[in-house]
């Protein structure tokens, strides 16, 4: 055989090999689309619908330029920039500029979360569950599952991008800038899908992989926030964040496209890294090796609450850190809030505060309510974990020991109470310390330290709802989320929504006393505690009556 023939053969082989590593991608892609056939349209409709809704409502809430300029002045404040965007176009604020500054950041985070979940779900989670082993044993190449996940990622982000575009166009916005905003959101989604594709190779476990990608997202959010707070239009720090790249197109103010190229470039780099990493690991293995642990259980593990706390510990700490940092940053805006409210009393009305009184305390108390909503989300998620435990047969294993169903459910709720309590304390302390530093009044830290606890009974009422849905099980859990999300939306956007008064007044977070700003009315708190107790009892009773799903 001569050299050319050998070379030819080698080429042939290598081309066969590279094609081989992607074999089966088409099948897996179609299958992934099928499994996500509800999820993707729901994300798209949610995003498109929300934007179209804001397009209708904001002209009502800000009917003239003066009102819009009031809104824009939030952006001039560093603290406003921290939570929203770089603040282009605030001298002549429009709905479009509002979209780029205030909505796009949040939409990009939503797209990023969707993408992280999507990629991990189709890669590492499949591998960890063992399903991928079955698939890979078929005529399926090493890289095919990742390739299929990334194709699905493209479809999903194209879908939410198109939905956002449609929503914006329905509000009579310019086509080119609309395209830039939609593409920006979708590209941030792609970038974080790429991050997840890398973290999926690093850890053996889907949750750890999601956690790492989520931490990258949180970092991107912080970099953009702090960077934008430093200077109007963003500082050098902003440019380290992909979220900033989307907002730096200056859409609806002075459009430029090139920042989006950064997203495309980063996505390509992440893809290359993921593909290289796949080649360096075994199926099912991660690149970060698992450590060995202790051979005997400590006493604290050997009761249901101890076990549950151990399972939940990481997630509680994560929530606690995240919420405390947010609270600290929010609190540190204190001085800015006081100043802008003093300068423009109408701004105070936007935050639902009357002029006069102690503006700072009242505003911080409102923020406490917003943070308590996040804790309620944690509480529901925490109770819902029981379903997974049961479906996997672990609850059955516990219930065949001397642990009763009542004790199991109450132990779980006790862990939820503990988690919620430390989070509410962290929030109060964060807000108080942040504000205390900003206005040089250390006393605020003590004043607010316990303020969050006012919401504990309410948070536990939502946990109780989740417990009822777990106890009945066949009734599903969607209705718990409907109740919670409705409360949150009415609570946060209430002033913008022009809702009937009866609806606004029924929003439970608003019913709680605004500690420590107002007078501490014990009646709503006691009522919430009573409701939490009743729901918990109902949950326990229904759980005791039903068959266990597996075990």
């Amino acid at each position, binding site marked *: 055989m001569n050299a050319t023939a050998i070379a030819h053969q080698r080429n042939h082989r290598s081309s066969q090999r590279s094609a081989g590593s992607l074999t089966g991608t088409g099948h897996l892609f179609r299958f992934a689309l099928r499994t996500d056939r509800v999820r993707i349209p729901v994300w798209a409709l949610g995003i498109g619908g929300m934007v179209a809704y804001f397009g209708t409502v904001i002209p009502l809430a800000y009917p003239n330029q003066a009102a819009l300029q009031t809104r824009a002045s939030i952006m001039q404040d560093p603290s406003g920039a921290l939570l929203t965007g770089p603040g282009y176009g605030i001298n002549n604020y429009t709905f479009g500029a509002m979209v780029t500054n205030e909505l796009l950041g949040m939409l990009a985070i939503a797209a990023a979360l969707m993408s992280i979940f999507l990629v991990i779900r189709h890669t590492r989670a499949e591998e960890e569950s063992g399903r991928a082993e079955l698939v890979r044993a078929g005529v399926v190449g090493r890289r095919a599952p990742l390739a299929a996940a990334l194709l699905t990622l493209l479809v999903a982000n194209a879908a939410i991008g198109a939905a956002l575009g449609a929503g914006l166009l329905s509000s009579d916005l310019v086509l080119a800038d609309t395209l830039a905003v939609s593409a920006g959101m979708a590209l941030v989604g792609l970038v974080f899908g790429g991050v997840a594709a890398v973290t999926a190779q690093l850890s*053996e*476990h889907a949750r750890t992989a999601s956690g790492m990608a989520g931490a990258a997202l949180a970092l991107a959010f912080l970099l953009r926030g702090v960077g934008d707070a430093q200077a109007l239009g963003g500082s050098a720090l902003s440019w380290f964040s992909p979220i900033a790249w989307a907002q730096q197109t200056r859409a609806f103010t002075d459009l430029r496209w090139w920042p989006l190229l950064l997203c495309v470039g980063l996505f390509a780099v992440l893809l290359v890294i993921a593909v290289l990493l796949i080649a360096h690991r075994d199926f099912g293995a991660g690149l970060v090796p*698992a*450590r*060995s*642990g*202790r*051979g*005997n*259980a400590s006493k604290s*593990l*050997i*009761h*249901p609450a101890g*076990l549950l706390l*151990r*399972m939940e510990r*990481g997630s509680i700490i994560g929530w606690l850190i995240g919420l405390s940092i947010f609270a600290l940053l929010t609190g540190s805006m204190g001085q800015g809030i006081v100043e802008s409210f003093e300068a423009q009393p109408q701004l105070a009305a936007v935050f639902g505060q009357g002029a006069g009184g102690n503006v700072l305390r009242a505003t911080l108390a409102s923020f406490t309510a917003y943070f308590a909503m996040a804790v309620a989300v944690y509480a529901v998620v925490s109770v819902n974990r029981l379903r997974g435990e049961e*479906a*996997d*047969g*672990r609850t*059955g*294993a*516990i*219930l*065949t*020991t*001397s*642990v*009763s*169903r009542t004790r199991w459910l109450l132990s779980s709720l006790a862990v939820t109470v503990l988690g919620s309590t430390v989070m509410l304390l962290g929030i109060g302390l964060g807000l108080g310390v942040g504000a205390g530093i900003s206005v040089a009044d250390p006393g605020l830290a003590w004043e607010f330290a316990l303020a969050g606890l006012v919401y504990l009974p309410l948070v536990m009422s939502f946990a109780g709802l989740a417990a009822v849905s777990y106890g009945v099980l066949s009734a599903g859990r969607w209705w718990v989320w409907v109740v919670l999300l409705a409360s949150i939306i009415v609570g946060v956007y209430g002033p913008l929504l022009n809702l009937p008064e009866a609806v606004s007044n029924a929003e439970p977070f608003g019913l709680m006393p605004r500690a420590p700003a107002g007078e501490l009315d014990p009646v709503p708190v006691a009522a919430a505690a009573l409701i939490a107790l009743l729901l918990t009892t109902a949950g326990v009773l229904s759980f*005791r009556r039903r*068959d*266990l*799903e*597996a*075990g």
Partner: protein
Amino acid sequence: MSATIEVRQLEKSFGSVRALDQLDLTLEPGEVHGFLGPNGSGKSTTIRILLGLLRADSGTARIFGRDPWDAVELHSRLAYVPGDVSLWPKITGGEAIDLLAGLRGGVDRTRRNQLLERFDLDPKKKTRSYSKGNRQKVALVAALASDVELLILDEPTSGLDPLMEREFQACIREVKAAGRTVLLSSHILAEVEALCDRVTIIRQGRTVQSGTLAELRHLRRTAVAVVSDGDATTVASIPGVHDVRSEEEKVHFTADDDALPAALAHLLPLGIRSLISTPPSLEELFLHQYGDGYTTSVVTGGRRAQ
């Protein structure tokens, strides 16, 4: 002494699927009882009712003389090993053993450590890295190291290799010697034959046979292969002898247990050069029960986790 487990006319349906249909099962104290049936015949469903995880539609189930539903205090007297063991992530195998045994009321540490050695299990590994066999060993060690009167084992060896399977059998013999009771659900017949005093065979949620291995053998014929100087095929004339056929110089037949003396008496004068008599294996018993017109109606074994 009253029965450790007593199940009468037990019925349970999942939606329109009837999982148990008048099932009976009795365990006397101190016996190792085999619970045999094909997949989906209702073994796991029965066990889950006995553990209080599912509620029976009708019939009675008694464990230590009490209704298992809402009688969690009984659980300190028993240990359960499921066929498909799922363990908590984030903890090690050793911790999982201590947890399961500890929640039952305590663990015998010396015994636990002996068992870890016998089953060759590293307790310091995180449970996520365990194979199916190792997860099963965790549940087995936790059950065997618990000081309990009753072990309920649902296909406990389905993930073990033959070496570990032998270790498991040795453990069960020790448990029996210590006077404890075992309910062993299985479709590994050799295991049941090696370990069990009595057997209950179920099919489509109904008990089809129950008794000691000797009693059940009674129902089956002994297989005989004989090489003789004279013509052994004439044994066919003895009542109770069946399936006579010759293969080269060997003659095979089967005989009902009560026909065996007459058959042997007939063969003796023919000048026997070799005779092999095989007692019916449980395999044959099983096929006898399920062989003819056996139709599967598979329910998902008490809804096992996927």
